[in-house]
């Protein structure tokens, strides 16, 4: 009873990032700076074939002539690309045959995060390709997957073992010169995941990777490539937490999805990188390019829960190239304190009878800025295209902002496009109703926010839904004043 709202507020304000700790693993880090030599060295270190080295160098050349994009509704100090180390790998043996060989310190880190590999292995049936900093250190359930012909490995392994697939699809969805950060990624990507589902195979488990940024001052440049061959299905999870750091860390990932005829890819993300402290100091810069291409009768579904990062710049998109293909985008973006998020999607309708659904929920609290930016484009030949978009924003307090920038471009008369957006606050009567029934304000808000985002949370796979719900609560703690 003596615990007043003031006290609660104070406690929450001083509450530090829960997952902010530094793993003490010796890292093998490159000198800071970026030049052709570094690009070559990364490629050499990863024992890549020549075509890959050339591919990287080509990207690097283009990158040198490019400028940082300025159109996003975010403000941040420009990262100094010459002060970042572009490669960091935990030291130790190069390859692991079993978990026992993995650095025990590293395993402890995962335990702290609540991801016990052993437990996950037994209980959840999730194969995890864990990425600490940049190199995959443990790949589990590989055998089960390989029986079905599914390839799930790190991208560097794929470059070595499956060069044909990589060569054919890398850069096919996100071209090298797509944008500043995608080009940078193409030049210096350190590692990432590769996944190939053969024809007609339904992947029996949720594939998942956890990304962590660990080494101080290390840029993280992940590259993910998921290929679902004809009539296959895969659900892919990606989740991240990062240790607390004072200096800004840059993360520029590229994710490419290829859904061939009749295939379905479900890609879910929970992003909880260090958002900076309550004064806006530190935090991760998250500039991600995610895009999928849908061939005939295929479907790509993006689901994301964005709670972390100081600056987020992310637009998971679908190119609906094939007839009857479907694109979906479900997103919750929560910003608190000084966080800034500019996120949304692009749905490019090219094929006939293509459908897309966009559901975006933005929640802003503290002094944060939350923007939805989306494009729905119906090309002239896309007969009977259908789009439904909804973006709702919830504001807490008058120091934050919620913005929507939807672009709708329609060139076909048979298209039906609907877009709605609304902005509101949590109703005082709703909170009062909860209070009356003995639910305190903090909990009431969590309840209401969960209800607000339920439509999107429902789209997450089971394993993530619980974690995501928890994350929402954590991110919004202390936002009631």
């Amino acid at each position: 009873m003596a615990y007043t709202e003031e006290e609660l507020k104070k406690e929450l304000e001083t509450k530090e990032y829960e997952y902010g700790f530094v793993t003490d693993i010796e890292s093998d880090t490159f000198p800071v700076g970026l030049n052709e030599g570094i690009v070559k060295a990364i490629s050499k270190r990863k024992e890549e074939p020549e075509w890959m080295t050339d591919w990287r160098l080509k990207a690097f050349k283009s990158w040198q002539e490019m400028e940082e994009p300025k159109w996003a509704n975010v403000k941040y100090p420009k990262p100094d690309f010459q002060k970042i180390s572009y490669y960091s790998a935990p030291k130790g043996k190069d390859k692991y045959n079993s978990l026992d060989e993995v650095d025990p310190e590293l395993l402890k880190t995962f335990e702290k995060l609540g991801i016990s590999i052993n437990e996950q292995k037994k209980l959840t049936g999730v194969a995890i390709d864990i990425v600490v900093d940049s190199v995959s250190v443990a790949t589990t359930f590989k055998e089960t997957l390989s029986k079905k012909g599914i390839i799930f490995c790190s991208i560097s392994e794929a470059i070595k073992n499956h060069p044909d697939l990589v060569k054919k699809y890398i850069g096919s969805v996100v071209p090298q010169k797509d944008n500043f950060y995608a080009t940078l990624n193409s030049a210096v990507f350190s590692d990432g995941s590769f996944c190939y589902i053969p024809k007609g195979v339904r992947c029996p488990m949720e594939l998942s990777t956890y990304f962590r940024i660990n080494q101080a001052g290390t840029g993280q440049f992940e590259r993910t490539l998921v290929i679902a061959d004809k009539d296959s299905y895969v659900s892919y999870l990606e989740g991240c937490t990062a240790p607390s750091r004072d200096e800004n860390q840059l993360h520029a990932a590229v994710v490419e999805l290829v859904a061939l005829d009749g295939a379905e890819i479900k890609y879910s993300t929970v992003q909880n990188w260090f958002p900076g402290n309550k004064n806006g100091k530190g935090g991760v810069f998250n500039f991600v390019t995610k895009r999928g291409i849908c061939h005939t009768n295929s479907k790509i579904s993006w689901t994301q829960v964005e709670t972390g990062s100081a600056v987020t710049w992310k637009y998971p998109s679908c190119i609906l190239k094939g007839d009857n293909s479907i694109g979906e985008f479900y997103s919750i973006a929560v910003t608190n304190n000084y966080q800034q998020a500019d996120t949304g999607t692009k749905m490019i309708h090219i094929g006939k009878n293509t459908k897309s659904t966009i559901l975006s929920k933005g929640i802003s609290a503290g002094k944060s800025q939350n923007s939805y930016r989306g494009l729905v484009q119906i090309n002239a030949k896309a007969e009977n295209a259908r789009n439904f978009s909804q973006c709702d924003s919830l504001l807490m307090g008058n120091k934050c902002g919620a913005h929507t920038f939807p672009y709708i471009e329609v060139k076909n008369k048979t298209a039906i496009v609907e877009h709605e957006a609304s902005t509101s606050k949590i109703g005082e009567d709703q909170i009062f109703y909860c209070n009356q029934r003995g639910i305190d304000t903090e909990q009431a808000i969590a309840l209401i926010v969960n209800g607000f985002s339920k439509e999107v949370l429902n789209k997450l796979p089971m394993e993530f839904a619980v974690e995501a719900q928890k994350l929402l609560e954590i991110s919004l703690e202390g936002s009631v004043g």
Partner: protein
Amino acid sequence: MIGSNKKTTMPLADKLVSSFLAFELDIDIQSPVHNIRTDAIKKFEKLGFPHRKLEAWKYTSLNKLLKEDYTLFSKKKNVLDFKNVKDFFLDNTESYKLIFVDGFFDSFLSQTSHEKVDVCIMSAALSKAKYTSIIKKYFNKSIEKGDSLSQLNTAFSKEGAYIHVPKNIILEKPIEIIHFATGNESALMLQPRNLIVLEEGAQAEIIESHQSLTDNPIFTNSVSEIFVSKNAHLDYYKIQNDRLSSSLIDNTYISQERDSNSKIHTFSFGGKLTRNNLNYYQKGSYINSTMKGITIIDDKQLVDHHTLVDHANPNCESHQDYKGIYSGSSTGVFNGKIVVDKIAQKTNAFQKNNNILLNDKSTINSKPQLEIFADDVKCSHGCTIGQLDQDALFYLRARGIPKKEAEALLTYAFANNVLESVNIPALKSKIKKIIANKLGVEIGFDL
């Protein structure tokens, strides 16, 4: 002579800047307004014409428009015969009239007033001492930060409508402002500048249109500054039904004070390229701002509506409702921006943009945009793009209504709720006639 050098390939922007000196010969450069003009031309020189790389002009290119060799200042006064232009006025309705021909005031066709209210012209307001205080208080005040086209207009501001309605005066008849272009000489560029001030508690209804009487290209870059004081009430109608040879860029800036109410209806049916920049600035509480529009275009027409509502104070409202029907290879653009400042709590801002595409070659680009910094607000926007309801069409045709008429009826029904809020009966029936004409049917829609 300015603008007579037909063989010149000088870009229009340069031509305008260099003709400023000649323009100065024609006006009183001692007046304090002139500093504003010289300042504006400098700003324009720096900025140039807007291009597609600018976010606000992403979907509308002025390139073709700027290639014409325009006469910048018409040399002689053309006299119009009322018989020939009668159709452009309201039928059987008493009104004040401000008529301009090729940028010059036409005193024969006009009906001005200096009793109680001032319904007269800018050139008089800018030069006569009795207007100085008002000009000083309002002229160019809302567009100091305006875009390059507004700056260009300011630089060459000389003529246009000047309306001043004093405290608690309610105008009993509407004001018609018509800018005719005869363009007998060649392509013509016009830059009318209107200033409308409604003092506390005043009420007025204004109808503005731009009408070309020639097939020579006409390029109008118009700026209207409107000030609506406390408790004042403004109803403003823009009729854009010009020939396909003419283009219009209409920049309107409205500043509202507390408890005021202003409505702008924009009816866009004609013109090659029409761009409406409609900017609302709410400078007090309990303000109501409404903007509605119907766009029906075909061929290669382009209509671009850019609205901005700046909610800077608490307890205000804004309502937007734009309907568009596009056929042929026409292009429609809608960009509605609502900004809610952090102190503007209890703002209600609604925006609706519904579109129908009737042809595969027609395009619609819509960008409803919200920028909200306050939490206790209700803001929403909706945008739809679709077709006429096939079932409804079938229903009508099954009852013997021909396809064209059935389509027209459905189109009319789609646009009707915008039309319903038009308060001048003569204007309403005039617009209905234009719509019927545009849709190629002979029905009255008075059902």
